[in-house]
């Protein structure tokens, strides 16, 4: 369970998030939509403290971290409960697909190499890349790289995976292979918070759609309700 309470983010002169309250149940898929500049990515990045919120608390299961007095240890603990998939994949360029997935297991979780190889291979198979284990990111297409990134996030067995516009940087013909993997993960009961513009994905997969505008949640509900309203009001 993820619970965000009154999350604010202020850059020098910009109030990007103006008090976000959001609760995500275990196994729930929440899609965050809204115009660019609404603060969607910032909100997602606040959850694992890649951006430090200016105010508010973040709770993942029993771990409660408040922005004002978060310690380094708490932030580390929070990040170890969460995983993130980035718009531009951000694979480790000097490591093969397999090593990318293994990295967190070995360095962060302290698993043995053989154990890490086993788990990583399993997850790369799950995203359909069993024949690309020893390829470097530079040798993979964007869609393949993003699937490696998803395997990397998944392998850590997180409480929630945060997807930050995972298909926005992809060629149109590569989008579907990534969405396919995400649907499969959702079906397995992974808790997911997804920032995306893919309306179809939201409609089919999301349990709930949250619409952000100008740093506030302006609408929230089932995909049918929210997307229908958006259509009639002409929002994107």
């Amino acid at each position: 369970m993820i619970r965000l309470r009154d999350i604010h983010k202020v850059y020098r002169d910009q109030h990007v998030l103006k008090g976000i309250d959001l609760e995500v149940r275990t196994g729930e898929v929440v899609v965050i939509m809204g115009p660019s500049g609404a603060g969607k990515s910032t909100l997602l990045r606040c959850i694992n403290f890649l951006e430090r919120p200016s105010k508010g608390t973040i709770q993942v299961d029993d771990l409660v971290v408040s922005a004002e007095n978060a310690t380094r240890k708490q932030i580390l603990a929070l990040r170890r409960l969460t995983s993130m998939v980035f718009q531009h994949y951000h694979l480790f360029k000097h490591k093969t697909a397999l090593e990318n997935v293994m990295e967190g297991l070995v360095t962060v979780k302290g698993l043995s190499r053989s154990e890490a190889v086993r788990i990583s291979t399993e997850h790369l198979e799950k995203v359909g890349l069993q024949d690309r284990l020893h390829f470097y990111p530079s040798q993979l297409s964007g869609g393949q790289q993003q699937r490696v990134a998803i395997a990397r996030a998944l392998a850590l067995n997180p409480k929630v995976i945060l997807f930050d516009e995972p298909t926005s940087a992809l060629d149109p013909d590569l989008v579907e292979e990534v969405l396919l993997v995400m649907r499969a993960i959702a079906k397995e009961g992974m808790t997911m918070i997804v920032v995306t513009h893919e309306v179809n994905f939201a409609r089919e997969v999301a349990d709930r759609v949250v619409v952000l505008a100008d740093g506030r949640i302006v609408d929230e509900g089932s995909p049918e309700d929210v997307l229908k309203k958006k259509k009639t009001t002409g929002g994107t």
Partner: protein
Amino acid sequence: MGELFDWGFMVQSFPEIVRYLPVTLGIAVISMIFGLFLGFLTALVRFYQIPVLNRLAVVYVSFIRGTPLLVQIYLAYYGIPKILGALNEANGWNLNVDSIPALFFVYLTCSVNVGAYLSESIRSALLSVDKGQIEAAYAIGMTSFQAMRRIILPQALVVAFPNFGNLFISLVKDTSLAFIISVVEIMGAAKIVGARGLHFFEVYIVAALIYWFVCFLIERMMLFAERRLRRYEREIVS
């Protein structure tokens, strides 16, 4: 004596001069090792912008880059014994400042000198690693030390490596300044041998050929190593 060029003397002098190649290489290799250590620390201080130390690092690099190595060698050679002497008197110590070998000052100056240049190339290499990968490392729960060791450094070193090669080649040539404080290396040996028969042109040709050959070898080795290091950047069109 009337001839322009004494082949016999040149051939004869070669073994006498090349005998000091280990001194030259010794200065270069030892200074490079300490320089890498110093350069790396300095680069980290600047990369993480550690207060106070960051300022000192900026001044250090600026001073080394803004003054000739020749001047730096003299400053160390004449300055350090003086400072130690003053400390001796002030504290009643009994350090023998005159027993410090000249070679020590060369090691010291060259290390500090190349360290400054190395720090700049290491720093820019650290900065060249894509910020997104660092975020990805943090996102999977790495500490900043782990991210540095596992993600940033391995890639930064590949970027900095060609620079290391160039700086090492410069360093090998810079060691030729050591003779001014009477350290006998290739250049010093050439001077001594040349003075014997006033055949300076010949001995300096020998010196030049030795430096050239050594630097050529280093360049080849660096190129070879670089290709191996960069294997992950190769793209395969499949």
